């Protein structure tokens, strides 16, 4: 019994060292921009770079659009599948998992073939069209996470009975979806939103090949040309991800569905 506990702690310690040591190393390196002393110069340099602010802002905006359109796509789909097409669930789950199997570069080349300037829908002809394409590609990438988060939240509530209750009270579909279902899967939607946000903020392939000024390509550019700033950016990127994960944990506690027994 005692040896099992020691082994368990050993495994945790090895895991922690494996994850934390490189992070500490990166953080320590990001502070060594000035010779002989620890400073936040690298961070200052990053934050004062106009390109950082532009690309960060652009990616934030793209993340916001991805979340909004992703929610509008995923919530009604997951709802409809649960309510009317339960037999289609395995098929839909398989489709939503495809972005994990198909490399991003294949997806983006597919997009470029379909929506290039000489295609029937030349989205890449304009900046706004390309941005739209980028949002769609981010939606595809975040689909496995968004769908699962929303579907799990829907499993927590009795979607069918709530829908019937609302219908018997005279409600129509938009009312049912936005007033009875959506607020009750909000924790799932927010979980999906934070994961989406973290994915979009670090995504490189799509933005780079579509030639958009996103945060991912900026990270790569800085990494290729500067010494200390990439470490500072890596820490900033980690902080964004952790913040998203922390918020995810927080919202998952707000679910108001735990029934009190009679």
């Amino acid at each position, binding site marked *: 019994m005692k040896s099992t506990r020691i082994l368990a702690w050993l495994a945790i310690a090895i895991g922690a060292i494996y994850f934390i040591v490189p992070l500490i190393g990166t953080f320590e390196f990001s502070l060594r921009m000035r010779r002989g002393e620890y400073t936040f110069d690298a961070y200052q340099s990053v934050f004062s770079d106009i390109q950082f602010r532009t690309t960060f802002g652009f990616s934030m905006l793209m993340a916001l659009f991805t979340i909004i359109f992703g929610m509008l796509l995923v919530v009604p789909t997951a709802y409809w599948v649960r309510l009317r097409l339960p037999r289609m669930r395995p098929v839909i789950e398989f489709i939503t998992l495809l972005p994990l199997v198909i490399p991003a570069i294949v997806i983006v080349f597919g997009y470029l073939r379909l929506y290039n300037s000489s295609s029937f829908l030349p989205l890449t002809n304009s900046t706004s069209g390309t941005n739209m394409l980028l949002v769609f590609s981010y939606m595809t990438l975040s689909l496995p996470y968004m769908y699962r988060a929303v579907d799990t939240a829907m499993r927590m*509530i*009795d979607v069918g*009975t*709530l829908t*019937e*209750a*609302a*219908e*018997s*009270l*005279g*409600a*129509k579909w938009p*009312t049912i979806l936005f*007033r*009875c279902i959506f*607020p*009750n899967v*909000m924790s799932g939607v927010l979980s999906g939103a934070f994961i989406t946000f973290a994915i979009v903020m670090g995504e490189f392939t799509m933005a780079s090949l579509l030639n958009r000024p996103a945060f991912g390509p900026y990270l790569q550019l800085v990494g290729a040309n500067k010494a200390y700033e990439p470490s500072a950016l890596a820490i900033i990127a980690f902080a964004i991800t952790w913040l998203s994960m922390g918020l995810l944990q927080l919202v998952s506690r707000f679910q*108001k*569905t*735990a*029934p*009190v*027994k*009679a």
Partner: protein
Amino acid sequence: MSFLSLSHIQKSFGPVQVVSDFNMEIEKGEFVSFLGPSGCGKTTVLRMIAGFETPSGGTITVAGKNQAGLKPNQRNIGMVFQAYALFPNMNVTDNVAFGLKVAGRPKEEIDARVKEMLGLIKLEHLADRFPYQMSGGQQQRVALARALAPKPQVLLLDEPLSALDAKIRVSLREEIRMIQQQLGITTVFVTHDQEEALSISDRIVVMNAGCADQIGAPAEIYNRPATRFVASFVGTLNLIEAKVVDPAANRIAIGDQGITLREPLGAVKAGDTVSLALRPEAGSIAEGAKGDTALTGEVVSSNFLGSVIRTRMRVGPSVISFDMFNNPGLVPPTAGETVTLRFVASDLLVIRD
């Protein structure tokens, strides 16, 4: 013309016929219970009235209006579900007000109606609570208030008490009946609990395999079961096999003991076997027990059930149960003892299916 009419209703799910030729006329303000075991089609009929299922055949009319083609949200039929189905994101007030808000009623009217409904279910003090902050009984009362708030023409209750514990079930069913009578609302109640159905209904429909086996007042269903299924499903019943001795004289034999029935035996001949039904409470072995008929047998067992003691005795090939009210001085018969059960011959019913 009746208020809610179900005429030749049928429902099939693929090759499976769930409801076949169901007919029922329900008067305005009547409380009707659909009683039957799981899978008998009672909830399916209820869901067809609500509009959640489309009948494969037949017509449903409410206040003379054919409901075919009307969506559930166009029917003005309130429904209470077994699983409460309160909206978890809304507090009690918002839940009760939901139907009125959807109907676009003025705010003053909504506020007044919500207050009235909460008063009706005696939960004014919980107006700001969320469903997860309430007990099952409280949630179901809110669900009832929510269903009643938009003043539906018909109220449907789909096993609303099944998820509650025994004590709350009894008090809530009385409350439901009281509210129903107070509002005079036509109500259809689905249950598999015979005690529930018997205690609160004006009429009961006993359903079996998608058909209505018997429709009648609770006393009629209990005392005069029309079929073997109704007899066995409603209450505890002794089903006794007997041999016809003299059909003209209604004379039968249980084992080697002869009995003359009050009810005519019908088209049977001497030597045929008939099924008879006798309620456990219809007979007694007490000294001076009333009854024009007696059966003597050997006690198999005696079980203490709280308010009654149920004794099983063997008579010929049949085992008959009978109940005695418990009292501290009562000495129950012991296994192997010979006892004589007395009852009125008219309590012995001939089961004809």
